[in-house]
């Protein structure tokens, strides 16, 4: 091909710019361009990268164990009167509404109250929602570190002769490559959550 006139080359270069940008975007599919997200866009967040915690069967788990799945992580405790069961029930409904794609969802429940949440109790609690849900039971030290790594707040609140827990009620959502993408707010309906999750699922196509 003959060398083109410098001015023409400049013009061509300018015209090509949008295509170059589009190509860049395509080559980094995990930097998602979410639209109309009801949840929080965390695709450029520099936290919540991974954890190493033990599940109720004594297995050490990290995010890598769930590659190929869209992972939903919720921090909670079983004595929780409504936020935790509501979030887990919504997760059940989300899976149902996603139909076949529901199989690609893995729910992980990280206890912020390992003192009272025994493995047995956590196992029974997960069973009550979906036998496929996995509960992770950190030691207090692991909990402190994981909460810090995930920017999650938790606090023991004394009440009468017992205590309850204040805690973050976001559900973190990872793409099938194990990268944090969004967080579902507690106030999102199942339908709104499903719409957000479809966008995360689309990233793996």
């Amino acid at each position, binding site marked *: 091909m003959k060398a083109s006139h410098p001015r023409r080359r400049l013009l061509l270069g300018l015209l090509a710019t949008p295509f170059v940008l589009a190509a860049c975007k395509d080559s980094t599919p995990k930097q998602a361009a979410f639209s109309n997200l009801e949840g929080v866009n965390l695709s450029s967040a520099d936290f919540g990268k991974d954890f190493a915690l033990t599940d109720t069967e004594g297995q050490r788990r990290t995010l890598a164990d769930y590659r190929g799945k869209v992972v939903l992580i919720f921090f909670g405790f079983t004595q929780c009167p409504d936020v935790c069961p509501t979030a887990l029930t919504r997760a059940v409904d989300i899976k149902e509404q996603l139909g076949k794609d529901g199989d690609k969802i893995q729910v992980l429940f990280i206890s912020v109250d390992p003192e009272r949440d025994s493995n047995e*109790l956590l196992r029974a609690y997960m069973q009550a*929602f979906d036998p496929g849900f996995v509960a992770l039971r950190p030691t207090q030290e692991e909990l402190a570190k994981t909460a810090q790594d995930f920017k999650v707040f938790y606090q023991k609140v004394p*009440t009468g002769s017992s205590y309850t827990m204040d805690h973050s009620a976001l559900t973190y959502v990872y793409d099938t490559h194990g990268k944090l993408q969004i967080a579902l707010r507690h106030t999102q309906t199942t339908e709104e959550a499903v719409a957000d999750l479809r966008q995360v699922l689309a990233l793996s196509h």
Partner: protein
Amino acid sequence: MQRTFISSLIGLALLGAASLAQAQVTVAEPWVRATVAGQQATGAFMALQSTDQAKLVGVRSPLTQQAEIHEMVMDKDVMRMRQVQHIDLPAGKAVELKPGSYHIMLMGLKQQVNAGSNVDLTLLIETAAGQKQEIAVRAPVRALNAKSGQGHHDGHGHKAH
């Protein structure tokens, strides 16, 4: 929609105050969330309406030593629970105890609460004149994963299509 009203007033006026009008409190759609074995706490929910200014000041249940009135608030994305001393029942206005709001915490459960059974609760009401009333409520237990607080309340199995 059929609403189930349970309103049983126990005990009339105290100490010769029988001539004073009592606040009539109705309890609609009470329910308690089921627990799994080993779980020590759960929530009770209902809608309360009083004919006259009154307040809910306490709850008792044979199921537990400790029943408290709690309020849940979302502070940004953090769930915070706090015990409240009472819930105001303005005259003629329904006040809902529901997930995400006021609720009754049943703590230190003596046994597992199974879906399909009933939990007896006694609500302690105080009228504006300082009179005390007790209201017996029999609350059906809904599954742990019962749909909560979204739209209508038909008590069971309303699934989104």
